């Protein structure tokens, strides 16, 4: 027996009284509006060319753009007014303003990344990333010396700052959100205020309390302490937000089972918020990894690999870049090239950390790992295949492992949420 699956009549479901038949779209751009904008853009471009380039003795790309934009506004307003009246003409002009503001906000972001990348990549090489400046003067050609010691110093200093401020910040957030008390309000207010303390004041504070009396030498450790003060409010604030997202029902369920405060926090609240805690730590790192001013007052800088942050004077990437800026003799000189290359490395670190924080799922790792691997392939392949190939393979393996770990963590947090909620 066969069943005929063809239906002559479409199945009509009875309308659900709770759902409106058609949602009204508020965000809606009509075809007329688009045509009006194109017309205004072309018309104002022509008029700008005529007036700005031909009739007045003005010139220059920036002025041209400003003139074009102003004329575009006028023309949009006029065309809208002719078609739809004054009220909608106002609406159109304001829309142009607001959209322009959003576009202007993104221009510097792209401009900074593009110009750092184009200026920095010429001098970048594997040797530059792994050597130090111990036997290189700042005017020596770029093929000598490198920033390996600065990268090492940055990793150690930021790592130490993280080790100090992440536990402290998380416990403070737990205090604010789970324990509470009379002190909570002032602590929250001062955490807010602390996030705005100028970074140089943190450096001054560490210098005044620890370095000047001689408790701590100028070293990576002092820099880490200064950075941890900067990092603390960021970690506290973001952790508090994450803890607030843990549903109250979970806590009540835990209490109802007879668990104490500590048990509830340890076994219910913190595990539920685990991925958020990682994010807050990473955001803290992103906040301080590029800070220069406190390091200027605390680490002093160095030219050689210095592995011990507690005893040695260390170099850090931002401090190195600032030093090269001061020694630079002008564009294209060795110090200038070193500055841009080191800035590119710093920017890459910052972007990597930011992407990891924003996309805690595997996507971020895939992105960063692929970008690194592609860059290495493209950049180091020509210099030395013997070194470049193993490094690239290792990077790919590490990123694959990171993806696997991230997926596991994700599955875990999902399953725990699924059970508990």
């Amino acid at each position, binding site marked *: 027996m066969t069943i005929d699956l063809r239906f002559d009549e479409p199945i009509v479901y009875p309308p659900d009284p709770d759902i409106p038949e058609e949602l009204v779209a508020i965000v809606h751009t009509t075809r007329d509006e688009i045509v009006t904008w194109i017309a205004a853009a072309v018309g104002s471009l022509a008029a700008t060319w005529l007036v700005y380039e031909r009739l007045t003795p003005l010139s*220059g790309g*920036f002025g041209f753009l400003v003139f074009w934009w102003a004329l575009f506004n006028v023309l949009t307003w006029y065309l809208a007014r002719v078609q739809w009246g004054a*009220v909608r003409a106002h*609406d159109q002009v*304001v*829309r142009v303003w*607001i959209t322009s*503001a*959003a576009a*202007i*906000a*993104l221009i510097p*972001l792209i*401009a900074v990344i593009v110009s*750092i990348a184009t200026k920095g990549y010429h001098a970048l090489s594997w040797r530059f990333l792994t050597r130090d400046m111990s036997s290189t003067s700042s005017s020596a050609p770029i093929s000598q010396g490198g920033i390996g010691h600065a990268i090492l110093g940055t990793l150690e200093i930021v790592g130490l700052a993280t080790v100090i401020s992440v536990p*402290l910040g998380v*416990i*403070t957030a*737990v*205090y*604010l959100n789970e*324990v509470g008390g009379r*002190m909570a309000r002032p*602590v929250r207010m*001062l*955490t*807010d*205020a*602390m996030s*705005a*303390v*100028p970074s*140089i*004041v943190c450096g*001054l*504070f560490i210098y*005044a*309390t620890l370095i000047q009396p001689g408790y701590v030498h100028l070293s990576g450790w002092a820099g880490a302490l200064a950075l941890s003060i900067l990092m603390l409010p960021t970690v506290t604030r973001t952790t508090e937000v994450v803890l607030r997202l843990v549903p109250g029902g979970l806590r009540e369920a835990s*209490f109802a089972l*007879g*668990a*104490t*405060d*500590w*048990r509830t926090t340890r076994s219910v609240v913190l595990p539920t918020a685990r991925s958020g805690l990682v994010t807050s730590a990473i955001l803290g790192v992103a906040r301080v990894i590029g800070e*220069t*001013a406190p390091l*200027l007052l605390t680490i002093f800088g160095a030219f050689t690999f210095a592995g011990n942050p507690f005893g040695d004077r260390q170099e850090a990437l931002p401090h190195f*870049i*600032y030093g090269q*800026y001061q020694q630079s003799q002008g*564009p294209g000189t060795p110090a200038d090239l070193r*500055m841009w290359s080191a*800035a590119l490395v*710093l*920017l890459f670190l*910052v*972007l990597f950390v*930011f992407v990891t924080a*924003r996309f805690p799922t595997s996507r971020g790792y895939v992105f960063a790992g692929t970008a690194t691997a592609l860059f290495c392939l493209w950049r180091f392949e020509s210099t030395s295949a013997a070194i470049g190939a193993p490094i690239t393979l290792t990077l790919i393996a590490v990123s694959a492992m990171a993806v696997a770990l991230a997926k596991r963590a994700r599955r875990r947090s999902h399953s725990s949420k699924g059970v508990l909620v």
Partner: protein
Amino acid sequence: MSIDGGGLLLQAPAHYKFDDDVPMVVVTQRTAADELYRAGARAAGAITLGLMGLIGFFLLYRSREAFSSAGWRFFTEQRWSPPNAFGIAALLVGTIVIAVVALVVAFPIAAGTALYITEYAPLRVRRPLTSLVDLLAAIPSLIYGIWGAAVLSGRVANVSRFFADHFSWVRLPALQLSFWHWYRPFQTVSNAGFTASSMLAGIVVALMVLPICTAIMREVFSQAPQGERESALALGGTRWGVIRDVVLPFGKGGMIGGAMLGLGRALGETIAVAIIISPKFDIHSLLQPLQTGGNSIAAHIALRWPEQSAGGVPTSSLMAAGLVLFVMTLAVNMVASLVVARSRSGSATEI
């Protein structure tokens, strides 16, 4: 059955009857671990509280030498040559000029971006756009500094020169120049007088305060009551009408608070300003942001730090400058947080 970690007591209130709708009192006995946990959490809170006090105290303690050397002249003196004559007056003016330029540039862009994200952007663009604006905050100020000095400098100088050439007859203090002339279309002045200016520093600082202003404003705008928006649209209002009559009145407190938080950041910006400006100490010329030279307290500390020998009045004077900066940013941010908190609590709503 024993429950690990603690005990739970259910106590019926006195004269408890089952038909009364009185909640039972739950008393949880605290264990030693529990007390330890609460004490530890309280201690962490106290550390944050104490840290701010310590920063203020130690800066004051280390700057007393400078204050006793300079006295009240510290707040009126423009020059900076410790241990003889030094004061914060010019630095203070320079700091405020840069912060005001930054705010004037950043405020409209931040407001526009926040409005675009909450009111105009298609839903699938909103999150990426928010991330990109936050990314602007993640880029280190050092990188903005070298970018501003190398790339932006010439362009801003061109614009500054244009204004100086053609608009110097506008007697605004901000554009006032040492010479006076009318529109001269063929004037060619070299850019030399317009590089490394407070204007350039202010624009670069604006990039750094833009994300925080945008974030605060976006948050406040997105909380504007949806019902009022829809009512305005239903009454035939345009989208600008909705913004003008619903979103902006609701978000006024947030806009002011966001701008002030940005101001607090702008006052304390160090390394970018230190890279860009060429320091000068004359209040009269500091008030002309288009011209070469500028100054700020934070940048001054960073630039002068290598010169000071450990201890003595020179170090102490920089500590004093740091103390002034600390107090100033703290005051601005406290007021800003209060304004933002009030607007968040919904007291701005009129229904």
